[in-house]
């Protein structure tokens, strides 16, 4: 089976992190975001993953070489020379997705994190015999998104309503599709929207079905949702009784620590914390609801909450970081600095406090 991951864009909402690497390579729970999806695809027998990209192809290609070997799955790129929207890239990758077997292929949105019940989706797709299946997820505020109106029992999709003003349903497009090769005949090689042009046509022919995604779903394309997403991801790890989560008196709630990270004595870590490879957390540090990326050093007695600390940064002693503080790559905070929502671009040194949310360029 094959799969296409829509990588697209510049990831501007995840800046300053995406000023250093393309978005799919930004780490989430100690792994590049896109690796979560590739591993889920490999697990159900996908043999080839195509990445639809349009930005920094050299960086992506280097990444691919490394992971192709490690994972034992073929990874190729399909590069847009002009933005093709949400459906165009599928047409662009046509030759890579069709192998004559007639098997359906997956299309995934790279910003999404979920439990990826892909096996169940394959069974669902075979069961209804339609042309395309999409995953939908229930949300509290549907009018922020595109709502999928469907028949509850069969899952047959009636229509899509973009940002509805009145309540028409609470299920939105989760960005995970399973498509028969015939769908490719419906997509022209030009900027096309899958939700506005392609899916409505398939739905009108009663050939589009939606499955409600069990478990969590999050679009982690921006820092606030990234932090919420980590909480959901770690919670789901806990449910599966994962041994990956840390245990001990210094940990509270769900915490993921890479085995090469070092944690000093007297720390209190958690809940909802991920600590990446090579990190050094010195003694007396308090971390909660935050992500500490590869190679970061957090010095003694510091307190970090609701923040993301970028690769190879250092945070001084007695510092306090909170309220969506985001440090880009190679940022160094001095001792005793307080940051309330400071967003700091890469390669900076910060010696004075940031008292209210501010971007430091």
């Amino acid at each position, binding site marked *: 089976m094959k799969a296409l991951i829509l990588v697209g864009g*510049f990831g*501007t*909402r995840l*800046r300053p992190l995406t000023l250093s690497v393309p978005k799919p390579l930004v780490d989430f729970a100690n792994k590049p975001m896109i690796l979560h999806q590739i591993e889920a695809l490999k697990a159900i027998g996908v043999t080839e993953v195509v990445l639809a990209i349009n930005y920094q192809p050299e960086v992506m290609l280097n990444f691919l070489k490394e992971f192709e070997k490690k994972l034992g799955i073929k990874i190729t790129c399909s590069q847009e020379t002009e933005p093709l929207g949400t459906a165009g890239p599928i047409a662009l990758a046509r030759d890579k997705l069709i192998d004559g077997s007639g098997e359906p292929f997956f299309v995934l949105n790279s910003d999404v994190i979920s439990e990826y019940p892909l096996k169940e989706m394959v069974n669902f797709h075979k069961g209804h015999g339609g042309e395309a299946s999409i995953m939908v997820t229930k949300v509290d505020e549907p009018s922020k998104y595109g709502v999928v109106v469907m028949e509850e029992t069969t899952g047959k999709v009636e229509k899509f309503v973009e940002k509805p003003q009145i309540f028409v349903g609470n299920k939105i497009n989760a960005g995970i599709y399973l498509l028969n090769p015939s769908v490719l005949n419906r997509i022209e090689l030009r900027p096309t929207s899958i939700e506005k042009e392609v899916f409505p046509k398939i739905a009108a022919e009663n050939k589009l079905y939606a499955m409600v995604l069990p478990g969590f779903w999050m679009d982690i394309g921006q820092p606030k949702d990234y932090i919420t997403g980590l909480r959901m991801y770690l919670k789901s790890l806990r449910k599966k009784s994962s041994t990956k989560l840390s245990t001990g008196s210094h940990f509270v709630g769900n915490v993921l620590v890479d085995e090469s990270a070092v944690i000093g004595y007297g720390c209190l870590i958690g809940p909802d914390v991920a600590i990446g490879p090579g990190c050094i957390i010195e003694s007396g540090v308090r971390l909660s609801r935050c992500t500490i990326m590869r190679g970061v050093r957090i010095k003694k007695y510091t307190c970090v909450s609701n923040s993301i600390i970028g690769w190879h940064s250092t945070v001084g002693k007695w510092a306090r970081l909170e309220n969506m503080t985001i440090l880009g790559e190679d940022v160094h905070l001095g001792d005793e600095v307080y940051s309330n929502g400071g*967003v700091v671009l890469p390669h900076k040194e910060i010696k004075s406090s940031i008292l209210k949310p501010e*971007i430091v*360029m």
Partner: protein
Amino acid sequence: MEKVVAVIMVGGPTKGTRFRPLSFNTPKPLFPLAGQPMVHHPISACKRIPNLAQIFLIGFYEEREFTLYVSSISNELKIPVRYLKEDKPHGSAGGLYYFRNIIMEDNPSHIFLLNCDVCCSFPLTDMLEAHKRYSGMGTVLVIKVSAESASQFGELVADPITKELLHYTEKPETFVSDLINCGVYVFTPDIFTAIQEVSTHREDQANLRHLTSFETLQSPTRALPQDFVRLDQDILSPFAGKKQLYTYETMDFWEQIKTPGMSLKCSGLYLAQFRYTSPDLLAGGDGTKSASIVGDVYVHPSAKVHPTAKIGANVSISANVRVGAGVRLIGCIILDDVEVQENAVVINSIVGWKSSIGKWSRVQADGDYNAKLGITILGEAVIVEDEVVVINSIVLPNKTLNVSVQDEIIL
């Protein structure tokens, strides 16, 4: 025949993030002011020095960033211009010393040292003549500024008759003098001996005294590497008052180009200077066959400006720009490949490469060159949709603005 060489310090990528977001796309020395890369202005000034043999650019950017520019400017000016890459920062004097063998190749009698991010009239010929009269080791270009602003710079005290440099101090807390260091110097080859003395002295000091760890933390130099020598603190200061260093005062304009806001101001200063030195570079037009031009304006020959547009004052339009009908541009730098659509207004802003300004949209700022958001900056490939207003904001590359913004940094 006495030969002269010039050295222009261009810096490197990690030094200073103040030029963001424009520095994401281009090294600061190559950012265009008045239609020419920043470094072009000191280079052109050096070309006017009689008997100039070579020009060296010293920095720690990757060589490939400068290859194209250096080759084309050498051709254009018919004089060798070379980029020398430091393996690591050596300081303003250390860099000069590091490459002394190459610099002294032609056995020059005098060496000019200029900082690339200085905007001034570069009166180098007059400065050289004055230096020869003083017969010292070096002459520093100085300018009088207001007493309040002087403390941001290196302050000098000079003898009013002999013009000798008597005292130098960097960014003092109390008032020392309203005469400041412009970052332009001329030296005789003795300067290399002076720099070496400093390095040796520093090594001897380190060997002689065993500093306690407390002392090393307190010491302002914090054990600089032996080969890191700064021109101001390490050379000007100790050699002041010893009849070795002199000053030459300029009465023209002088600014430092540290931020994008200042680059807009300096672009304007150079455009004003073109009126005297190269008036053919400035655009002219009255709205009949070509656009109306007000004040000093530069338009690249490949740019297309609709005749109903009104441009100026202080506008610089780069290559392949398309300015549509009814557009008004005041106080701005429009970089390569930008499209400004019909009836848009751009005031006190810098519009980044390949950006698109929509119809009836308005991109403007107060015009305070020193304020953080005093000039609106759009990074590379920013799209401002029709009728959107952008005021006093900075927008990072590749963003599309479909709602109006004010006083914001958009990542």
